[in-house]
């Protein structure tokens, strides 16, 4: 946005869907015996994320996260878990890349897959470059977790 430009309502960073995920996170909590555990961290702002996954064949049978940090990082984690639960790992990976393309490469939100309906709302975070890493933390952690699964 131009310095001094007017704020567009649609640009507002804290859209209701984000606040809803922040206040009522989906799949929040620890998992006792996950097949894969992965921890993600943003050292600069201290966001922390623990991701737990259980697989049935190539499907993500169960997913849960526990984290602390700002509303963007926590809402994004909630959206991610909701989007990829029950999907096969290849689809989950493709969605993570779509999301990152939107946040980092300028891919328009409209072009994202239907599973990312809620996650699209994070597009407004791009107006705050230092916060983009909060939004992508959960998705990066998922990609790392899926890489780990491949090695099991």
């Amino acid at each position, binding site marked *: *946005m131009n*310095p*001094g*430009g*007017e*704020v567009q309502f649609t640009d*507002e*960073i*804290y859209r209701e869907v984000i*606040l809803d995920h*922040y*206040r*009522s*996170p*989906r*799949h*929040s*909590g620890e998992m006792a015996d996950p097949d894969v555990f992965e921890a993600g961290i943003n050292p600069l*702002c*201290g966001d922390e994320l623990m991701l737990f996954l259980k697989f049935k064949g190539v499907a993500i049978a169960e997913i*849960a996260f*526990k*984290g*602390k*940090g*700002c*509303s*963007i990082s*926590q809402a994004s984690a909630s959206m991610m*878990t*909701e989007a990829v*639960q*029950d999907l096969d790992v290849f689809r989950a990976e493709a969605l993570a890349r779509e999301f990152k393309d939107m946040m980092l490469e300028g891919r328009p939100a409209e072009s994202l897959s239907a599973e990312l309906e809620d996650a699209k709302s994070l597009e407004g975070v791009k107006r*705050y470059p230092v*916060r983009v890493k*909060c939004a992508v933390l959960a998705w990066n952690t998922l990609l790392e977790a899926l890489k780990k699964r491949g090695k099991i």
Partner: protein
Amino acid sequence: MDIDKIRKDFPILSRRVRGKPLVYLDNAATSQKPRAVIEALSNFYENTNANVHRGIHTLSEEATALYEEARKKVARFVHAPSPESVIFTRNTTESINLVAHAWGRKFINPGDEILLTGMEHHSNLVPWQILAQEKGAVLKFVEVRPDGTLNLEDLDRNAGPRTKLIAVTHVSNAIGTINPIRRFAQVAKSLGALLLVDAAQSVPHIPVDMRVLGCDFLAFSAHKMMGPTGVGVLIAHEEMLEKMSPFLGGGDMIREVWLEKATWNELPYKFEAGTPNFAGVAAFGAALDYLQGLGMDNVRAHEQELIGYALKSLLQIEGITIYGPMDSAQRSGVVSFNLGTIHPHDLGTVLDEDGIAVRAGHHCCQPLMRRLGINGTTRASVYVYNTKEEIDKFAKSLDRARTLFGVCAPSPTDRPAKPSAKKEGR
């Protein structure tokens, strides 16, 4: 003081941020610059630019005169022992590191003690950790009480015959506490130890008289007091500076150089190796003139009134926790707080949407944050150009954040998992 008139001297204060008039409350990070400083900088480059202490030509002579005149202004501003006791560095951090290297490496021995406090900026902690590790010295601490003031019993308890240096911040950058430096000076003197005062947050905001403080080293930065970035100050008695080893080696700090050895230049040049930031120093002179014109007593009075007003209005916000002393006489123009469970970065963003600039995070004081049992805070810090109307806007924006996030809710991750509504029935 006519604040409206002062505000007109600061071009940046008329800009808008995200469609709203800028409310700049991040002065503890860096201050804004009056037109006089900006013009001094561009005038220097347009009319005077030449390297100092070198050329036998008019421009160099003029540049050197501006550079040395600024040194005298610094000395007068804080009542330093002499202009020669004023060393220009890059910033407060470099000033403190200079002491750790040039004094510490020469005079600190195994088993010697360095007494610090639990509220130091990393820049007045890490250099001493490095020195202590290298020399086998011991770090001791004056701890912070829950109210954000120092526990002075620790000062009496932990200072002793092995204490060689006490290093303390005059004003906490993170929570605004003004520390009783005179007490530290008395203890240091009684033990024959040296006292270093990190004055980065005090010299810009409150009258500082080195003779009254009774310290051996005083460190601060130009950019927090309306001057340009890249200029820091270290002041110490000349006898002390004579005894110390050089810091950086190179041009300007030498008297004679042979292939195998060199001798050192006189003070203060012994500690100013290489081409200094002479344009910045010249403009810093203009900043000192500006502050002198306002009067530091007036600056402090205005900020104390503002921060008292801010404390009063912030305390009315439900769910707020304010850190540091609640008496504005013991606090600089800084108010550091948390609002319910809202993450400081979220608060920072909401405030930014309203054109309000604050700092959010650990403020380079991780040990202090740990001591207070928090990860970070949101910090608003005022300067002489801020107004009560701006504090009102700030409080209103905090109220908006409180509504947006819902303050009294427990941390979301502490709550039981809510099953995904969308995926049910699959």
